[in-house]
């Protein structure tokens, strides 16, 4: 089955080479970071988590978002998602792999990472996050490969895989809930200290994950004979729309609580992110652009002519994905550190090397995704179009 990944068009190989190139640059930068220490990045004692952890947080969402196709297929027996379910599972594998790489890139002492297992600490949410992420990775590898293997052999998958498929559904919710718990259980960080953080994470995940999935499906439709079908596409658009609305509704709730209660701690970070605090406003253009992109995406998703046209729908999906990426992959983590506990403002700008490493992890994720999708689609097309 794996041999399917070794035969492809020149476009396929060019794409692989581009990814490998970015990975090479990132690996070079990582060696430098490893030798110098994390001072190689733009992080500081005040903003002690940067791009790595923010990408990690966002990607946990993308991984969890895959459940939006897995759940209807397995729980509601929604056969229309049959072709896309495997794509959702493989997207989860690639995303969790990226999450784990980002965590490793962020550790000051990466060689000691296994201390988390040697000294298991039940009161640490990071310990639980490690458990749920690796568990989710395993579940998706098992379910994805077993189902695909069966299809490849032309048999029906063995019955034992079903419990794993069902388990993966609540497990997907758990990965993003526990990831939210990393942040929302810290008494001194008001921006994160909100019970709605886990729901916010889930809403943005259920919009961003399927948006990326559908966007990839649209590309596949143009470049290969693989088509997920009109009905599945429309259903996904509906799911994405509801999740996106919920996401922006939750964001609005944060604004209300912050500004109506007038509590300084609740307003500071919102001020910093959307208006600037004491003259520091580096993230303001990003956050406002995120709102703009989100608004464009909602217009596309609500206008029948625009969402029925693959091109405009694609634009809408990209807008939504980047809106959510800025909101969670930048603002949420970086903003939470401003102002610092002593109410000084330190801004964070990632270093060039740090950005290269970040891009390289994304490239690795996309490489995993490309190989997995290549195999899956080759198998499916082979069986369906003799």
């Amino acid at each position, binding site marked *: 089955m794996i041999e399917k990944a070794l035969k492809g068009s020149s476009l396929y190989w060019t794409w692989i080479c581009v990814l490998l190139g970015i990975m090479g640059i990132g690996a070079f930068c990582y060696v430098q970071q490893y030798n*110098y*220490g*994390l*001072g*190689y990045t733009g*992080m*500081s*004692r*005040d903003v*002690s*988590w940067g791009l790595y952890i923010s990408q990690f947080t966002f990607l946990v969402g993308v991984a969890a978002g895959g459940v939006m196709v897995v759940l209807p297929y397995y729980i509601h027996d929604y056969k229309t998602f049959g072709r896309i379910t495997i794509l959702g599972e493989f997207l989860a594998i690639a995303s969790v792999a990226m999450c784990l790489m980002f*965590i490793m890139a*962020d*550790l*000051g*002492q*990466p060689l*000691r*990472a296994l*201390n*988390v297992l*040697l*000294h298991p*600490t039940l*009161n*640490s*949410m*990071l*310990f639980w996050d*490690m458990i749920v992420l690796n568990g989710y990775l395993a579940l998706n590898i098992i379910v994805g490969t077993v189902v695909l293997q069966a299809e490849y052999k032309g048999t029906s998958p063995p019955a034992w895989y079903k419990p794993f498929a069902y388990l993966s559904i609540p497990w997907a919710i758990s990965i993003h809930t526990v990831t939210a718990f*990393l*942040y929302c*259980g*810290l*008494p*001194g*960080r008001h921006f994160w200290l909100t019970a709605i953080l886990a729901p916010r994470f889930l809403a943005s995940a259920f919009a961003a994950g399927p948006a990326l999935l559908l966007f990839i499906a649209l590309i596949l439709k143009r470049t290969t004979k693989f088509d997920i079908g009109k009905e599945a596409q429309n259903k996904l658009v509906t799911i994405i729309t509801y999740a996106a609305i919920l996401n922006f509704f939750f964001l609005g709730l944060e604004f209300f609580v912050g500004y109506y209660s007038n509590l300084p701690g609740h307003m500071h970070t919102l001020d910093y992110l959307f208006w600037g605090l004491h003259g520091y406003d580096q993230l303001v253009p990003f956050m406002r652009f995120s709102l703009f992109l989100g608004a464009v995406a909602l217009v596309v998703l609500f206008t029948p002519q625009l969402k029925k046209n693959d091109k405009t729908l694609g634009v809408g999906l990209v807008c939504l994905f980047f809106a959510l990426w800025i909101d969670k992959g930048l603002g949420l983590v970086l903003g*939470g*550190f401003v102002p*610092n*506990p*002593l*109410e*000084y403002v*330190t801004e964070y700008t990632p270093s060039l090397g740090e950005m290269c490493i970040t891009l390289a992890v994304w490239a690795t994720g996309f490489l995993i995704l490309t190989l997995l999708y290549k195999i899956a689609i080759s198998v499916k097309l082979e069986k369906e179009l003799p």
Partner: protein
Amino acid sequence: MDKKRRDFLKIAGLSAIAGVAAPTALNTLFKGEVIASDHGGGHGAEPQGQGHAKIEVPTGKRFGMVIDVNKFHRYEGLAEKCTNACHSIHNVPKFTDPKVELKWIWKEPYEHAFTEHSHYKKNDELHNMPFMVMCNHCDAAPCVRVCPTQATFKNKDGMVLMDFHRCIGCRFCMAACPYGSRSFNWSDPRGKDKDGKPLIAKENTKFPTRTRGVVEKCNFCAERIAVGQEPACVEACGATKAMIFGDLNDAHSEISQVLKKQYTIQRKPALGTKPSVFYII
């Protein structure tokens, strides 16, 4: 009344009783709080509980510190003397870039040390006072709660300590600390600065230097307490008595006597961390 409806009412009644009784039963089960309900009994108008978090129950030793800000204000240079004593004894490297600097104890103005207090219409003197800030060795330390490897832990004397060899450098503790008291070694602390000067001017061989990629902070001089010495900063203050260190749980200790007589404040008490560092202003 037909049977179904009567059954329903029975179940509803039972559930209501269970609903009322269950929390009490659970409390008794988990916390052994039987006496709590007896307390309010005789005094009808008394509030049923304190608005505050649970009262700290003394168990074993709990070391703490009282910092007299007036004295730091009176004796010029005392703040720097404390910082230098601490940093040289503990081999804290001197990075000049504030973004990556390491510090265990340092001075801050009032509005940054006490961010949740009002700064409106305070006397000028207050704003000029140096407030020594450091790890609060919280009784309910968020950093200890979040550490995935127990590299940061509370010892039996109530001191929050670091195991530099176990720390994986995830910096979760830095995100968790509400006081900004933790520092990370962003690069090799044993190295040299841009001008070729060693970052640790004179190494104290009795205390370990650290490696890059681990977190560190004030350790209440656990290594000195263990051999009967005072913390380095307290020693630096000497006869000024600007800092008083001792066991908060020992009613006869000097620190307990001072706390009994003087009005003191703690940093961010609303967070429930129960800091062990107190300030006289």
